[in-house]
């Protein structure tokens, strides 16, 4: 295997790790806090209802925005690190 392809392989692995981590947070916010864990979080009150309701109607959307920007920023940095930018 040439240096280039070892490098490329590392880049791809780093990307996969980043995607996996991000998707865990993605799932925790929406399927977790907003749906499945809602009964567990019902003790935390927020504006006349509970935290799970907030996550379902607003919180998860805010998390999604943060995640896409974080991923774009991190990947663009990774491109440079590995010399793969355009």
């Amino acid at each position, binding site marked *: 295997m040439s240096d280039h392809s070892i490098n490329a392989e590392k880049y791809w692995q780093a990307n996969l790790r980043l995607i996996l981590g991000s998707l865990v947070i993605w799932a925790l916010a929406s399927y977790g806090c907003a*749906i499945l864990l809602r009964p567990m979080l019902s003790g935390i009150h927020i*504006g*006349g209802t509970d935290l799970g309701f907030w996550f379902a109607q607003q919180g*998860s*959307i805010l998390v*999604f925005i943060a995640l896409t920007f974080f991923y774009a920023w991190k990947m663009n940095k990774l491109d440079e690190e590995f010399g793969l930018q355009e």
Partner: protein
Amino acid sequence: MDQFTINLLFVGGSFALYFGIAFWARAGSTKEFYVAGGGVHPVLNGMATAADWMSAASFISMAGLIAAGGYANSTFLMGWTGGYVLLAMLLAPYLRKFGKFTVPDFIGDRFYSRTARLVAVACLITASVTYVIGQMTGAGVAFSRFLEVDKNTGLMIAAIVVFFYAVLGGMKGITYTQVAQYVVLIIAYTIPAVFISLQLTDTFLPAIGLFSTHTESGMPLLQKLDEVVRELGFRDYTADVDNKLNMVLFTLSLMIGTAGLPHVIIRFFTVPKVADARWSAGWALVFIALLYLTAPAVASMARLNLMTTIYPSGPTEQPIEYAERPDWIQTWETTGLIKYEDKNGDGRIQFYNDTPTYEAEATARGWEGNELTVNRDILVLANPEIANLPGWVIGLIAAGGLAAALSTAAGLLLAISSAVSHDVIKGSINPDISDKGELTVARISMFVAIIVATYLGMNPPGFAAQVVALAFGIAAASIFPALMMGIFSKRVNSKGAVSGMLAGLISTLVYIFLFLGWFFIPGTATLANTPDNWLLGISPLSFGAVGAVINFAVAFAVSSMTEEPPKEIQELVENVRYPQGAGNAVDH
């Protein structure tokens, strides 16, 4: 000036604006027209994507469904935003690197097979036609109200307008027109919401108002709403759902469907760099979120306003008399979307949930059944009238709703017609067809798609947003898995991809048709669409996620039993993974 004239002015004015910008942008640069968005900043591209994406389902229908379902219908909010995370990480950058214009192109090349390409086209057309039915439903509601005609007449008018709009479709490619549409759409959605939020909670931002104190009662808004609806036998607005499996699968269907819909994916093919594809997804989501964070506030406040209109002295007192009903109820009655029947003959409007659990109370109050039916798709459009907002706000929301419905419907019709003329006819059946012949085929297929969608839109298989959700389920079960496996696996081969797509598409369609009628033709459903008939309580709207799992499983199983993809295809996969050396998107 009467309301009718104001509506026409706003709708006409906004359309003049779009055409004006299209003309100006075209005159300014011809290149811009061909390389759509080629030199456009990711922020503007994100705005244009948001306009393309938000349709009658988001604008007209969604808040009405949330208002009726409360917490349970949060699925629409999460589903239609969470998909952008998948798009940004799993598809957009790689498809941009691949550098062609259509989804069937990628599937055809990656799975080195004309069959795979044709199957992808079939999936694309099925999902898009279903999507158009939803748009026609929404546009029909809007037209019937603003022209004050019956809902089917409104639908016919919508069909004619959409057809001409799509035929003039060249302007669709101009990003600046879509930026203008976005601006009209978001202003139209936000202004009434701000007014209503100020009226009810003294809070300027509706998204904050939702969790603030209801000024009149001094209670938190959501608590007040829970109390009011409970008095009338409805489920608490914030109540948790019992069937969590269905809620999870429905949300998942919408999310992966978002990432599988061709007209959204195409937007990321045209940004200048791979890095921009990543940023664009983020910006698109920001602009979508501006509407989606307001929508739940619109939903709860409209529900509360509707209840207080019918029960001005509180839900425990008598409702209003029919003869004294507000004007907006009267105008919506002419469309057939609000219906009143005086069951107990007392001349008042009893509006409640007549379920067995509430029967005792209803009898005690002398009520003999719910007397008012309100179509859920009207809520956003009626919202400013319910809150007694000035006439220009009502005109504004008309313009916004139509911008949302028409731009998306036209975009989808273009996607359908180009799939038929470019991918099927030119790509497979008759490669020597002339440009003129290709254009004729495109127009005919657009015409056929509109006729089908209008016919099915008269008795749609659900409210606008639900029909659109079905389209997402179909895209989720067929297109998304094929795209994802094409990028993340070198092992999945053409046989695997084709059988996977077919298994996903067919299983999902069969499940949907069983409950909603074969090919959506009214009255042909095999089973009643009730939770006890559903497999494990999974509704037809949620089945797309199951279809996607079937697709993945079949594709991997078949691939592992058959040969590896050829060397050059494995290199192609390797190549799309690294941003380096992405040229401009090429046409063919």
